[in-house]
């Protein structure tokens, strides 16, 4: 008889009582689980964004630098009408698009090789190589490019025998550096997306007489598009807001981020800076809206 009751009755400990209590009270369980993340999302993220929006409609006392909280459209009007902001917005958009295109072109073959061609061992090594640059600081990498692109740098040394020369500091240097910095963020989602393409489909295409390019065009790309778009969201939005890289290798050029930075730092005009900061937000929202129709957001 006793052998049937070999499983001892659980001892009543505080932990057990607590977990039983939580088991019976679902709402408490949920509260404990979500308070911290919701606090983060609410206060740190949404409230900060809302404050940014509100600040754009305030103004600043030019001598004491204090913000006056009377409502005004002046900043937004200035940002919309002044040709300076139009020029800088177009330049920033151009850089972001160029960086995104370069990154996608570089990421596609690497990601395809990793997902479909490489052995599992090689895949692991490649994955480490892709992720490795993320271990180094952003600033170190940008300053490394500053020295590479210098007139005294390694690029000039390599190109001189071929009659070429370094682009020097400027927009080209900014595009090169940003493309380098954001490449891992583009490779990762595209790799993940390509991994989902079943090998059987590729084989079927080959069996039915589809050549390499035909298979890529009609099988791989359509299935990879959402992943590619997910990757472009990273490179595009990160480039749009960047001001440090352009400060380090951009020579005399400025991007939207620099205008925000000088208005906060040098001009001490937080309201105008907020108004400028609305430009990339609007652009990103427009982009996300377009992207939503492709179904890429379902992958996130």
């Amino acid at each position, binding site marked *: 008889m006793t052998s049937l009751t070999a499983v001892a009755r659980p001892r009543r400990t505080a932990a057990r009582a607590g977990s039983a209590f939580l088991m019976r009270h679902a709402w408490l369980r949920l509260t404990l689980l979500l308070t911290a993340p919701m606090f983060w999302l609410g206060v740190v993220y949404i409230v900060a964004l809302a404050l940014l929006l509100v600040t754009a409609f305030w103004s*600043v006392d*030019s*001598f*004491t*630098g*204090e*913000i006056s909280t009377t409502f005004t459209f002046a900043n937004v009007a200035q940002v919309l009408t002044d040709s*300076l902001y139009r*020029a*800088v917005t177009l330049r920033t958009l151009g850089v972001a698009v160029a960086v995104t295109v370069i990154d996608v072109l570089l990421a596609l073959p690497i990601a395809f090789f990793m997902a479909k061609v490489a052995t599992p061992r090689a895949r692991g090594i490649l994955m480490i190589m892709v992720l490795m640059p*993320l271990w180094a600081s*952003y600033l170190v990498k940008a300053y490394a490019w500053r*020295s590479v692109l*210098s*007139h*005294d*740098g390694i690029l000039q040394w390599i190109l001189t025998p071929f009659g070429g020369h370094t682009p*020097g*500091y400027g927009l080209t240097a900014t595009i090169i550096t940003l493309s380098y910095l954001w490449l*891992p*963020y583009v490779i*990762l*989602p595209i*790799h*993940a*997306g390509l*991994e*989902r393409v079943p090998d059987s489909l590729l084989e079927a295409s080959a069996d039915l007489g589809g050549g390499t390019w035909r298979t890529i065009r009609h099988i791989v790309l359509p299935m990879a598009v959402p*992943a590619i778009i*997910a990757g472009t969201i*990273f490179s595009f939005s*990160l480039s749009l*807001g*960047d*001001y*440090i890289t352009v400060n*380090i290798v*951009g*020579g*005399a050029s*400025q991007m939207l981020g620099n*205008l925000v930075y*000088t*208005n*906060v*730092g*040098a*001009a*001490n*005009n937080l309201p105008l800076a907020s108004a400028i900061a609305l430009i990339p937000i609007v652009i990103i929202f427009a982009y996300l809206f377009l992207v939503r129709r492709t179904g890429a957001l379902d*992958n*996130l």
Partner: protein
Amino acid sequence: MFPPTKRLGRVLAVAAVAASITALSACGTSSGTTDGGGDAAQKLGENEGAISILAWPGYVEDGSNDPNVDWIHPFEKATGCTVTAKTFGTSDEAFNLMKTGDYDVVSASGDASLRLIASGQVSPVNTDLIPNYADVYDFLKMQKWNSVDGKSYGVPHGYGANVLMYNTDVFTTAPTSWDVVFDKASEHKGKVTAYDSPIYIADAALYLMKHQPDLKITNPYALDEDQLAAAVDLLKEQRPNISEYWSDSLKEGQSFQNGDSVVGTTWQVVQNTIGAEGAKTAVTLPEEGATGWSDTWMISSTSKHPNCAYAWLNYIISPEANGAATGYFGEAPAAPKACDFRTDCDDYHAGDADYAKQIWYWTTPIAECVDGRTDVKCTDYSQWTQAWQEIKG
């Protein structure tokens, strides 16, 4: 092996977290305080054991840049105040950093000091509590950039000029005029550098003051709309020849060392640093004169260590420390006795009040013209900032 969707989600999540960390690390926050300036201290108490200093690069050296250059450790030893220091690249940066209330003292140039006083960031300073103040040159005391209504707001640190740096391989003889960065800048297209701050407009105004007398500029910090427009035009012509605008003096020095910049405005300290490393550069003071600075150590109105702050103000104008600090930065000291501790005082015309008057010290441009004109309204600093952004384009 995870199902594909889960794996994608994970990879994306990792990428998203990494991306957001990158984005966050590029951000900073600051909060403003609107405390009144308050009154000057009447007597001093015990030192608090710590002090937080906000200073120009080269003003707070603890031997980490050059083992022979160290006036921080003697201060810490003598007063028991442990120093934490932060440097800034432009006066605007200093002004905004002071608003965080994290700093006890700041070395403010004339284009920041009045703003700091007006916004109540700094307190009046009772100079009777600073024994070394008696030795300071009289022409630096109670000037319009360090006092308001007969109340002193700090002690002078030193003064100097923004000089012209050139590559000695490119310029075999020293340039005598600022025209190498303005009218003749295109001769070195893409290799000219300029200071990245709206206050640099004054450099263009000073050049116009000497070369276009019909504009009737008498003070580069008092520009009416037409005069500002002329200065802006000059800087817009300069813009295509610029390699980069600098605000970080280390980065500027590096550009001169690499040959990415060959001519442009600089500080003596940059030449001292890269010259010691063998760079082929030299500096000169062109015939038009130059803009410059006269710096003041000020005490934050929200200082948590006021006694250490007074100890610092007294220490930094003491002959040995002031001699070391101003000698290292390359500027004239605040007190004649400091020259006993450095050999190059004559190069900086230390104590020569007439020479000091020829340097146009950084001053915050305000609507009320600082040259005394009353028939026009001058352009203020926010207009200069706006103009500066347009120049950079």
